[in-house]
């Protein structure tokens, strides 16, 4: 597949990058959501505040933090799905980016084959390319004759196997992964994790949003710790995961007293 297939239609606005090794940078980025209040009123709810971040070419950056701290929103700003409310974002010219999404656009009434086709096309493949991937998806997902059955008849493990195998075809310069590494039963999980690791190694730039510290420590070069919408710490993996463990301990202690 050509490397541009992940993002087909959107033209990226490339700005001057501050750092030479960076493929993507955020400068004092704020993101607000709006909550409705009464008739016709709304108040801004800050989700991210003054985030500065450089994503370096070829690195695997982990993003960790508590539930609701703004990890996924940060990922969406980095992936270009959401625009910052304030601040600026710069992307190296010609860089493609996409979220590795399990079961993108799946419909339970359709067969595994139809869903894989649909999902591959939503990820940017042409119909011919998508059809060319079907055998590989069938093979990797180990669904065998279930591939021709409606997804509604699948177990949740089978569904995620299909979703993972379809998502794996995505080929872009920056790949965003949000909590999808652990799918299926033990043996499939091993295979899935090996496939992801193979993707992560080498040239691929990856942003991995995860709760699983062990996984982050194993895979990431650097880690960003997000707390209450702010970038609390950014640095070498073990330093930051240590701080995060301390933060978790502090929170547990303050809760118990």
């Amino acid at each position, binding site marked *: 597949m050509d490397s541009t297939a992940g993002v087909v239609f959107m033209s990226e606005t490339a700005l001057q990058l501050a750092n030479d090794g960076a493929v993507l940078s955020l400068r004092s980025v704020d993101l607000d959501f709006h909550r409705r209040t009464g008739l016709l009123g709304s108040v801004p709810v800050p989700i991210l505040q003054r985030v500065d971040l450089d994503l370096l070419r070829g690195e695997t950056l982990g993003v960790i933090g508590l539930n609701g701290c703004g990890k996924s929103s940060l990922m969406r700003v980095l992936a*270009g*799905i*959401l625009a910052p409310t304030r601040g600026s974002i710069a992307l190296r010219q010609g860089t493609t980016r996409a979220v590795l999404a399990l079961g993108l656009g799946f419909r339970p*009434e*359709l067969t595994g084959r139809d869903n894989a086709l649909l999902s591959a*096309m939503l990820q940017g493949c042409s119909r011919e390319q998508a059809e060319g991937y079907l055998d590989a998806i069938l093979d990797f997902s180990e669904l065998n004759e279930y591939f021709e059955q409606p997804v509604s008849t699948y177990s949740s493990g089978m569904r995620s196997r299909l979703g993972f195998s379809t998502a794996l075809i995505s080929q872009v310069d920056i790949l965003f992964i949000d909590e999808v590494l652990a799918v299926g039963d033990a043996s499939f999980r091993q295979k899935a994790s090996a496939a992801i690791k193979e993707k992560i190694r080498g040239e691929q730039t990856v942003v991995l949003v995860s709760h699983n510290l062990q996984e982050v420590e194993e895979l990431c070069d650097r880690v960003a710790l997000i707390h209450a919408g702010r970038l609390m710490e950014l640095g070498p993996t073990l330093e930051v995961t240590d701080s995060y463990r301390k933060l978790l301990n502090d929170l547990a202690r303050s809760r118990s007293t």
Partner: protein
Amino acid sequence: MNLQSFYRYFSLVDIQARMSLRADASRMYLGYLWWTLEPLLYVAVFYLVFDVILSSGRADFLLFLACGKLPFMWFSGSVNTASNAMLNAKGLIGQSRLPKVLFPLARVQEGLYRQATVFCVLILLLLLSGVAPGASWLWLFPIMLVQYLIIVPCAIFAALLVCIARDFMRVVSLGTVFLLFVSGIFWDVRDVASVQTQQLILTVNPLAFILDAYRQALLYGVAPDGIHLLVLGAVGLLASVLMMKLVSRLDQWIALRVLSS
């Protein structure tokens, strides 16, 4: 937009529409049969009410009604289902940078495929009722094309409004009911006594003109006003392009609205 990206664009709209139709059919015991059953049931109800119960004065009232109501349902159905298309695609919008206009367009495309069967049913009804086919029937295709070009911008606009506030779903659905009464479906625009009022309705309300054009071409063997049709088509095309550009400019704003809804 170049030809290749247009083709990709279209194939995405097309695959979404087809898959949605397939999924829909597989949920029902009668599956694709519903496509023909639904318009047939409508015609049956019209027959019961207007020919049997009311035995209305107009001999061809059943056909008159079918030629107006069935194409109108194409418009109202498409615009209504498209109105919540972006809001309902929350999952996809949160995980991808697909152009948002894709979602209402897929619903419109789905409506087009369904409507093809409905028009077949309509033609069959006309033939069975003894209406002689003529060269004027060929007007069906340009009229359908123009109606499609009116549906597209309306559907995209409706979806955009619903992104601004969910309340617009009600407004859109009430609006289509309002249009049902003012577009000359149960009454004939040509029966309006004042010529000025008649002209006004046909000029201001494109649907009234379109529905009248279907009737003229299919029932009375009369060609519709070609210039009027051409102008409507051009306006529809322009409005479609503008709507697509607007949605593409608002892309990340729409994502924010949908994700925080």
